[in-house]
């Protein structure tokens, strides 16, 4: 089943993936095991995206499949929640001034599929709420997505507030989305910027391993 499920996800075949998951569950397979297989497939999707074999459309497609599979697995997973599985905690949102959510939603799903614990605050989020959530979840990563420039003001305000709360050094701030550039990253004071979802995951992982922040700053 594992190889077939992986092949269905990599082959962009949603229905087949769902059928396989449902069959596996009905046969008593451990939902965590199934989730692990899906995550392995998503890791492979990410790798293929980084090499140029896959495009953003394949990330979008497989992320949707992953989301649907998770919804099927959820009851079984809830019963055996295991936080040790998490690679790290991420707070994500589209900052105040911007209501676009496509990029943010894709990023949230991909991060979940790569074993991050993600708290998605939605769109048009005031900077105070972003920082409050970072504090509450003890999140080492704050990910901000934006399509229009008014979001820059909120991004900067969030970073300033992190500093005022003594959280700046502990929080890796990564920005992305159509309007962001490396120039914007420097001006706002974020740690990283990318338009590439697979790179975002790599940067977050690298940060969690403790090697990234000094390099970026």
């Amino acid at each position, binding site marked *: 089943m594992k190889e077939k499920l992986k092949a269905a996800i990599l082959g962009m075949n949603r229905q087949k993936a769902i059928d396989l998951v449902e069959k596996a569950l009905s046969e008593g397979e451990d939902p965590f095991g199934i989730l692990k297989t899906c995550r392995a497939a998503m890791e492979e999707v990410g790798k293929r995206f980084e090499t140029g074999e896959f495009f953003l459309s394949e990330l979008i497609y497989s992320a*949707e499949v992953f989301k649907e599979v998770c919804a099927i697995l959820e009851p079984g997973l809830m019963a055996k929640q295991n936080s040790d599985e998490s690679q790290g905690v991420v707070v994500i949102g589209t900052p105040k001034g911007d209501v676009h959510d*496509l990029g943010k939603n894709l990023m949230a799903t991909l991060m979940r599929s790569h074993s991050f614990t993600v708290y998605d605050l939605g769109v048009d989020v005031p900077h105070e709420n972003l920082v409050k959530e970072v504090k509450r979840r003890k999140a080492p990563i704050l990910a901000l997505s934006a399509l229009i420039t008014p979001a820059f003001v909120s991004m900067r305000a969030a970073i300033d507030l992190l500093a005022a709360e003594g959280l700046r050094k502990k929080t890796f701030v990564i920005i992305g989305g159509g309007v962001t550039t490396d120039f914007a990253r420097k001006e706002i004071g974020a740690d990283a910027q990318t338009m590439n979802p697979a790179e975002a995951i790599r940067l977050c992982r690298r940060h969690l391993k403790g090697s990234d922040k000094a390099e970026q700053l």
Partner: protein
Amino acid sequence: MIRETMSRQERFKAAVSLEKPDRVPVMPLMTAFAVRSQGMTQGTAWRDPDMGFKAMLDTFNDLGGFDRLYKPNLFWPMIGGRFCSTPIRVLIPGRQLPEDSLNQIDERVLISRDDYDKLATLGWNAFWDEHYEKMTGGRKISYVAATQNQLLNLYKEEVTIYHGQDIHPLFGAYVDSSMMAFSMARTLTEFTMDLYEVPEKVKSAMDASCDDLIQNALDVVALTKIPVVFIVLERGSGFYYRTDIFDQFEWPYLRRYVDAFISEGLTPWFHLDTDWSLNLPYFREFPKGKCVADLDGTTDIFKAKEILGDHMCISGDVQAALLTLGQPHEVEAYCRRLIDEVGKNGGFILTTGCECPIDARFENVKAMVDTAKNYRGKNWH
């Protein structure tokens, strides 16, 4: 200041046809920025088209004037009920958004997967005649059509006023590309799923819609009499999709658009948001010196010059982040680089990368306009 020997019209035409103008033409694609520059709230300009028009004109003059005006006002010209793009829901400042916010698109699923079959049978126009009221929960298409016709008349009147002042609005009509229109109707995610799961349905719907979209744009141009069609692309680029998808769902229709527009003596203006690097070689198949590739800062414009520069006019790409967060000297330095490298041997129009951001610093936009007027470029022979 460079001594000008061409009119604004001549300069623009020279750039499009790859001839060398007296200097690089310049045009910030401004709408919301103009409103804010005049100290007006966005809501004011959305409620009162006269105020929107005034903001555009006053900001144009405050910036010292430039070669083309992106839009006469905040709205797009469209014949009532004949949609040149998907009738998306736009969140308006002072209504669904705070009074001084930027208007934003609320991207939602507007048609179902089953609607592809209806589109294939009815075509674009007849489909929306039938579907619009259902989609909006009872809003009559005749209501929106009346508003659109009113705005179209206003557009024509405003164009006449501008022309009287030697100010030239950029486009006579705008139209969504095939993938743009359907992606906005289904949302990016759902449309992507459709391309993998029901490609033949998507294709049939596109086949049946293309002629209507072209004709709608041509009908608008016949009224506005400005010979440029602004084609909104973005969703079909190599940033999102591999080229075999582009080959099937974007390129054949874009070719039909371009053939139709050029045969009517119009200039297709490709508004290419996102990264089009992978697709740019295709654009060499279009007739030389007849179109404009307008880049938003995501595509490497310097590489684009290498690929397309001897074949198609390029416009772009002073980025939103630079205009908002940067300093005038940084804007000037980037514009000089664009003029030197992309403007080399002509075929370049200096524009903002996509629309000028609402919160761009006025002095930065002024620096952009002034650089084109003052700096001819080191490769200008």
